[in-house]
């Protein structure tokens, strides 16, 4: 399904999606708050003119904090556990950039491929991604073309919007996407031949824009495997401060920690929660004994890069990195995944 939507009508479309009383969507769109773009509940005045959001939209299916169950124990009684599943609410996320769209199937691989994560699944089946093609790279650190992506990729998206100046070219990618568009009804018009031609041109131009480049993405898995003991890791991670910016902003990082949060001691009451964790934190691999197998920043940087470009590739046949460039732009000390991969692969020969 391919349609044209006047830019002035986007609020109308969103209103139509939210209004349906029976199974209404909650619509989220990027909004600028305190200098950063974040997904917020959309209530009119949606203008998809954001570069990219500060954080990826992975939180819609994999929130930073997920309650698994609550527990309560009264003395002399068996402990009572109550599973807490996410609320049944459909979410439509607008303005998702292609790199973040490509993050979705990667997260799906992790949480649904070998083992089904009920919490992830409960959320994921209720989220639809309305993508926005990048007419030009929104960040100076974009490199989607290097990792098999494209500024006009539709991977992981349900609908793709392409900005044609005063209107969007709207394309349904999935059945859910068609349903979203159908809800908009007459707001959409059929594209003319000129529209078709223009969208083709915009897409061609988008791909032609220069980006940052990973020189040998295909050779990376083998070369990284061969470079496990390279002294380069430590050298390149010398400035790393061990914060969580790179992984928390990443559209595909999915490591987590599980903790019991005790609310009261008598009666013993609380909940078990899953929170994002981060391989760059020094305590991520800390053993109870005090031994830490990834003792220095070099080993931790290697883990992050190898996971994206080697381990994930070996497991699922694709790079885990989608080239959004957030980890590069966000790093306070200039650690640059493009430069790191290039340097290691060059030295691997």
């Amino acid at each position, binding site marked *: 399904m391919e349609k044209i939507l006047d830019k002035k009508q986007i609020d109308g479309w969103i209103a139509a999606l939210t209004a349906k009383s029976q199974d209404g969507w909650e619509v989220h769109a990027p909004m600028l708050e305190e200098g*950063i773009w974040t997904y917020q509940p959309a209530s009119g005045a949606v203008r998809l003119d954001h570069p990219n959001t500060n954080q990826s939209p992975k939180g819609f299916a994999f929130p930073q904090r997920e309650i698994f169950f609550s527990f309560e124990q009264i003395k002399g009684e068996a402990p009572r556990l109550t599973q807490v599943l996410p609320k049944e609410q459909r979410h439509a996320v607008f303005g998702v950039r292609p790199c973040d769209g490509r993050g979705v199937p990667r997260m799906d691989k992790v949480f649904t491929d070998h083992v089904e994560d009920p919490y992830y699944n409960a959320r994921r089946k209720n989220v639809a991604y309305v993508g926005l093609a990048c007419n030009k790279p929104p960040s100076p650190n974009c490199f989607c073309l290097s990792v098999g992506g494209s500024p006009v990729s539709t991977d992981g998206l349900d609908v793709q919007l392409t900005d044609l100046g005063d209107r969007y070219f709207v394309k349904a990618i999935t059945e859910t996407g068609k349903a979203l568009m159908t809800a908009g009804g007459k707001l959409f018009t059929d594209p003319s031949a000129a529209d078709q031609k223009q969208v083709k041109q915009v897409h061609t131009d988008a791909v032609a824009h220069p980006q940052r480049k990973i020189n040998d993405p295909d050779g990376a898995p083998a070369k990284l495997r061969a470079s496990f003991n390279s002294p380069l890791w430590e050298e390149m991670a010398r400035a790393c401060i061990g914060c969580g910016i790179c992984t928390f902003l990443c559209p595909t990082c999915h490591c987590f920690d599980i903790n019991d*949060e005790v609310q009261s001691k008598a009666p013993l009451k609380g909940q078990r929660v899953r929170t994002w964790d981060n391989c760059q934190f020094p305590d991520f691999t800390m053993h109870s004994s005090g031994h830490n197998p990834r003792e220095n920043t070099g080993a931790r940087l290697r883990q992050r890069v190898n996971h994206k470009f080697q381990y994930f590739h070996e497991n699922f046949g694709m790079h885990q990195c989608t080239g959004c460039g957030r980890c*590069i732009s966000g790093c306070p000390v200039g650690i640059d995944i493009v430069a790191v991969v290039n340097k290691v692969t060059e030295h691997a020969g």
Partner: protein
Amino acid sequence: MIDIKDIRDTARDMLTKGEARAVIGYRRGSRGMLAEPAFITNLEQADELVWDPTCFHNLSLYLVEDRKFLAHLRKTANAPIAIVAKGCDARSIVVLMQEHYFKREDVYIIGVSCEGTGVVDERKLAPLLNGAHATSAAFDGDDFVFTTAEGEKRLPAREVMADRCLECRNPFPKEHNAVFGEDKTGRQLAEPFAALTRFEAQGNSARWDIWSRHFDRCIRCFACRSVCPMCYCDECVVDSISFPVTAETTAEDKANRIRWIERSAVRSENITYLMTRAMHLAGRCTDCGECERACPVNVPIRLLNNKMEREAREKFGYEPGASIGGSSLVASFLDSDPGDFIR
């Protein structure tokens, strides 16, 4: 004006004579205009050193890292480390020495004066470049000069400087072994604590409305803690890694152990974390502003530290990083300390 050649020559000289085992400075990074920390151990690398308005980092953090690394290897250093330090960075080094983290002879301070300006605030710069991205930045008198794809862009430094630099009272590193650039102490580009004063002019409930939104935004990536040279504790109160959970750990054990702050990035825990950090930095923070710069979600962390700094200065006459031998703010007192608030 600082000639970068002088800094490079000093670095080369130190390394040649074996007076320093490494020089920590700034070099050009691989992303746009931004400088990044450099660890120079051989002579050729010395030519990579730069000095420009993107040299934000408080490099004294790496003196702490070095100390921890040596302790881990159970080694002692054979020569000092040389470090490029701005006024605020040099004050951090003084605080670290005041706290006996290392000794004066362990470090060779190559001071750089921020002269009439300071470092750029990327958040202020972005809108002025109209979507263009700068590939280099340079000092030029009272201006910054940026190179973009559309050509050269000259901006008065005042318009794009970080607040902390505008308000800086000591842009000259008083504690140093060598120093470059003019001493422009007292240059007063903005009133000290100007941003804080503006914020405090609002009422109690307005302040809460603003702070609660900031606390909600925090994602607990701990960049503020990681980037801070004063956050050197081996174990932070938020981590509790000394409480391992084993197969034998009972629910009772878990319930009874002290967990000051939960891992969840929710408002109450974020508040406790950020407020505790501000308290731990009282009298120690030298306003390098790195926590606020590093924050990926723009929490104005500096305001909290600034508030403590001003209280210490006005009520206790205390200036962080003023002298190596001085006592610390919370381990000392005066008879004249305010006590009116006590019933």
